[in-house]
Structures are given as C-alpha cells and as structure tokens.
C-alpha cells in the first residue's frame, strides 16, 4: 500500500481558496436570518465550499483534483467556517447582551448573570462548531467534485 502521492501532499496549493471558502461559508452562516438557509442540509456551508472549489479550478485550468483532496479542502474550509460562524455568533450575542443590560438597568442580578453566561457559552460553541462544519464541509467537497466538476477529477 502506497502512502499519499506527491500531488496529494502538495495540499498547500489550496490554501488561499480554503480561506475564501471558510470566509464565504462562515460569514454567511454567522449572519442572523441568512443562516436559516443552513437548515437545508448545511446549504450555506456546502455552497461556500463548492464555490471556493470552483474558483480554485478556474484559477488552475491544468490542475486535476483527487477526491481525497476535495474532502480535505472541504474539511479545512468547513472547520474555518465553523470557527468564523461561531465568532460572529459570539460577538452578536455579546452585543445583544450588553444592549439588553443597558436597557434593563434595574434587572435582577440573576437575569444579568444569565445573559453573561449565555454570551460566554458562545466561546465554547466555536470548537464544536468547527467539527460539525468540517464534517459537512468534507461531504460538500467530495459531493461538489463528484457532481459538478467530474471532468476535473484526478483518478
């Protein structure tokens, strides 16, 4: 059994496009209301990754991508998107919590501590979000390659 090929190991060539995929998916998934589209099979996450993959394929017309690379591309971009979406969610909840705290100056201490706890929870969400988004991202990368870019598949 051979280890991964040299081209498989040249994974760094995807770097910029993995970041683009993470940015598109993460920002879209972090914006309230727009992120409801993720209810449809993590659509925003998968679409962002497929879009980034198509941008890479357009930028490198002679390059072929293996299924393993597509899965890795999707997983990495998905993990990045999960972190970004989690961060945006955290910042949004912090903003909401501070706005509520300033409005409810006479609110009971228990409510104030609950608001603080809910925004702190946002930080714990980030690593779990990254794993969940990485799984759907890997699936999106392979499915995107198999369904839309079959002619650019290596092997």
């Amino acid at each position, binding site marked *: *059994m*051979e280890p991964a090929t040299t081209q498989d190991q040249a994974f760094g060539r995807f770097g910029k496009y993995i970041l683009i995929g993470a940015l598109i998916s993460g920002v879209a998934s972090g914006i309230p209301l727009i992120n409801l589209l*993720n*209810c449809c099979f993590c659509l925003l996450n998968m679409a962002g990754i497929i879009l980034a993959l198509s941008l890479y394929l357009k930028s490198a017309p002679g390059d072929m991508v293996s*299924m393993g690379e597509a899965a890795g591309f999707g*997983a990495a971009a998905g993990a990045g998107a999960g972190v970004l979406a989690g961060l945006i969610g955290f910042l949004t909840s912090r903003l909401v919590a501070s706005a509520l705290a300033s409005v409810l100056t006479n609110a009971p201490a228990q409510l104030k501590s609950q608001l603080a706890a809910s925004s702190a929870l*946002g930080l714990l969400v980030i690593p779990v979000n990254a794993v969940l988004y990485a799984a759907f991202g*890997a699936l999106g990368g*392979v*499915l995107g390659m198999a369904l839309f870019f079959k002619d650019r598949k290596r092997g």
Partner: protein
Amino acid sequence: MGWTRPRWVLAFRILLGGTGLLPWLMAGHRSVLLEAVFGSTCHRMPERSLVLGGVQMLVCSRCAGIYLGLLMGALMPAGRWVAQHSRLVVAAVAMPMLLDVATQDLGFRPSWHPARLATGWLLGLGLALVALAHLRLWADESIR
C-alpha cells in the same frame, strides 16, 4: 510518513459517522452547548422535532433522519455502481424529501414525523454513500 489513502477514508467515515451519531446519542439528554451548536444548522421548531425521554432532540425530525442516514452511510460499504451513477442516486434520494417539503410547506397536509424522518434518512444515507463510493475508488487506486 504520510497517512495511506484508506486511513483518510476511515477518518472521513469516523467524522461523518460521529456527526451522525451525536444527536441520537444525546437523545433524552439536555445540553445547552450542543443546542446552540445544532441551532445554527437546524430551525429546531418544537412542533417539528421529536421529543425522546421528555427532552426535545437537538435537531428537528427531518434533520434527525439525515443524521441517522449519515451515520448508517458511514458504516456501510459503498460500491462502484454508486460512484458511476452519482447524479442519478442524488436525484433519487433528494426527490422524496423535496416532495415532502413541498406538500408540507404548501399546506397540502400537516407536518408528519415519520415522513420527515424517512425522507431525511434517505437523503443522508444516499449522500454519504455517494461520497464514500468516490473516496473508496480513490483509496483503491493506491492499493492496485
């Protein structure tokens, strides 16, 4: 030394299967953290979610079906035929769910958990099998 391709496929199976298992493993248990995580990928409407052991599941019944399908797909062998007919398989597994969504959301019938579960399961299973069939072909190339 780099990982062999079959190992990467196994890692993919574990990631996919673990993700599919989580909502079912947590059925009947409350987790504020996981509710927040899964809340970003599912509407979690109470009337469209299953309640097990007195606790609403982390995801709605359709997503619960999808996750179960992903878990089962991750555990199953995926044949060459599936890879060769990817588009056909994806269309076949997506159609029942699209019909279910359309007839339910256009108000032709009320939301029905068994239909949501079954059509979600079919979609999750089909997509996992298509992805794994392609990855398996990729892994087999290195063995030949």
